[in-house]
């Protein structure tokens, strides 16, 4: 209800033109590292950019439940099963707080979910790769949650307060997931030859898609300049990718695994990696990844098959609504 009311706000774009002064004040607040809150004045482009980014992030958490959910029933020990179920549940929780943060900007969760289901909204490319063996649970925790942390730690200082606060909570859990994933890898790498081969194979398949998680190289990135000025983003895609490689290389060494990039080397503190297949990245983002169809189909199926449940809950709530409230509304 609350968000629907917000949705009906008139577009504030025309007002913005008269409001160069407000825009200047807004930028001054950003420059002074003040947090922008939901009811503060903000340029429409800032609102749109954040709504897009936060909702894409929320969609990624929710779609991200699927590849790992694929292994809950097959987890190889009760401890792993419980940890994986709890992890995937955490991701659902992240999706919930992120949708709530996006709603503060005036678009309802229903509308945002509808954008995902209709294919209009994007989510992280990484979740369009299949999880083929148990080792993928290790690789995803270690690398995908690891990459998510690199992206999200700076977002804890994002200029938009509700997003920054959601990220603080999320990051704590992501780092726990990362350690848990690494520990799965470590156990496999200390195990028998088959287990170690499984771990290496998972790394081989997830390494390049993980590097793509940081987005196109700085020379090709579309949204970065304004996001930097608004302090939504604090580091460029390439800077974050560097941090990630820097953190991951020694971890792979401890595991005794080989990163699948013969060209990877550090020169004067900068990691040089082999060419990333950006065609693959763009194809996956545009819907042509190995699992795009399955992921969206699974979300749509859950939504469609759950429709009668949501309708029942709404019908029941309406029947039980206190009589006098209905009378008041009628009056």
């Amino acid at each position, binding site marked *: 209800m609350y968000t629907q009311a917000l949705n009906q706000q008139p577009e504030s774009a025309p007002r913005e033109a008269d409001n160069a002064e407000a825009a200047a004040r807004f930028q001054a607040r950003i420059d002074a590292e003040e947090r922008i809150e939901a009811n503060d004045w903000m340029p429409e482009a800032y609102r749109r950019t954040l709504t897009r980014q936060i909702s894409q992030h929320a969609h990624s958490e929710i779609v991200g439940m699927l590849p790992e959910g694929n292994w809950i029933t097959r987890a*190889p*020990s009760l401890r792993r099963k*419980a940890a994986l179920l709890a992890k995937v549940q955490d991701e659902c929780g992240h999706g919930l707080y992120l949708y709530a943060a996006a709603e503060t900007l005036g678009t309802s969760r229903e509308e945002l979910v509808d954008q995902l289901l209709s294919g209009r909204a994007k989510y992280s490319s990484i979740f369009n790769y299949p999880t083929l063996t148990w080792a993928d649970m290790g690789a995803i925790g270690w690398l995908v949650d690891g990459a998510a942390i690199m992206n999200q730690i700076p977002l804890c200082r994002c200029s938009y307060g509700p997003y920054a606060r959601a990220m603080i909570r999320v990051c704590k859990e992501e780092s726990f997931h990362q350690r848990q994933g690494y520990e799965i890898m470590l156990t496999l790498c200390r195990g028998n030859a088959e287990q170690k081969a499984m771990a290496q194979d998972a790394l081989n398949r997830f390494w390049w898609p993980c590097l793509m998680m940081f987005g196109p190289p700085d020379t090709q990135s579309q949204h970065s300049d304004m996001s930097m000025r608004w302090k939504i983003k604090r580091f460029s895609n390439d800077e974050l990718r560097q941090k990630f490689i820097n953190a991951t290389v020694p971890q792979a060494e401890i595991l005794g695994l080989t990163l699948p990039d013969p060209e990877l080397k550090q020169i004067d503190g900068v990691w040089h990696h082999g060419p990333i297949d950006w065609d693959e990245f763009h194809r996956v983002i545009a819907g042509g990844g190995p699992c795009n169809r399955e992921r969206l189909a699974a979300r749509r199926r859950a939504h469609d098959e759950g429709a*009668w*449940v949501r309708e*029942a809950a709404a019908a029941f709530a309406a*029947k039980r609504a206190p009589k006098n409230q209905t009378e008041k509304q009628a009056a």
Partner: protein
Amino acid sequence: MPAASPLLRYVLRRADDALILGHRLSEWCGHAPMMEEDMALANMGLDLLGQARALYTYAGEVEGVGRNEDDFAYRRIERDYENLLLTEQPNGDFAHTMLRQFLYAAFAYPYWQAMMTSPDATLAAIAAKSEKEMAYHLRHSAEWMLRLGDGTAESHRRLAAALEILWPTTGELFTTDEGEQALIAQAIATDPESVRPQWTATVTQTLTQATIEIPAKAWMHTGGRQGRHSEAFGHLLTELQYVQRLIPNATW
């Protein structure tokens, strides 16, 4: 291996109930009708997995030959599992899953509550934790009984259809065998018959309020407690045990 003692068999049966029902709930993860229910189903699944782990660990102690929780969960065959048929029933639709949870929790909540006074300190401790968890499962599933039964025509129809299917598996909740009778006589275990009045009252009151009619006299299926399962159960175990069977004797 020598025949299982009554206590070992008792503990394993309860562990199997919790594991199998928890496993079924975990199958929903990522596919629930709303995100809040994804959270709730995972919570209930995690509670049950926790109960299973505590009970299997205790079974290992009782048996005393060094088997751990995973040996019980991953290295037994179908016929060695003695969970209730109710707990292994496939998820079906959301009405089916919630009804299964309701019928189980309406039993398990008072059952574990009674078990809190067992002179077996481990069982009493597991009971104290499980009782709190099952109280939540009962509350959550009972709320859904009302919403679905008294929601729309479709939800009513689906819940009523689920009850037709699940009802005949509820008689087994109250069964015991000679070994369990001996434990009951020593007050180590609670007689499930003793919680029948409370179960019947909870189920009757809730479903009546939900405008769902309870089936009249029906045949009751048994067999789970003797390791005679539904065909679906073998498929569940196949999935659950896959990795352990694929690469045996490894550490995971």
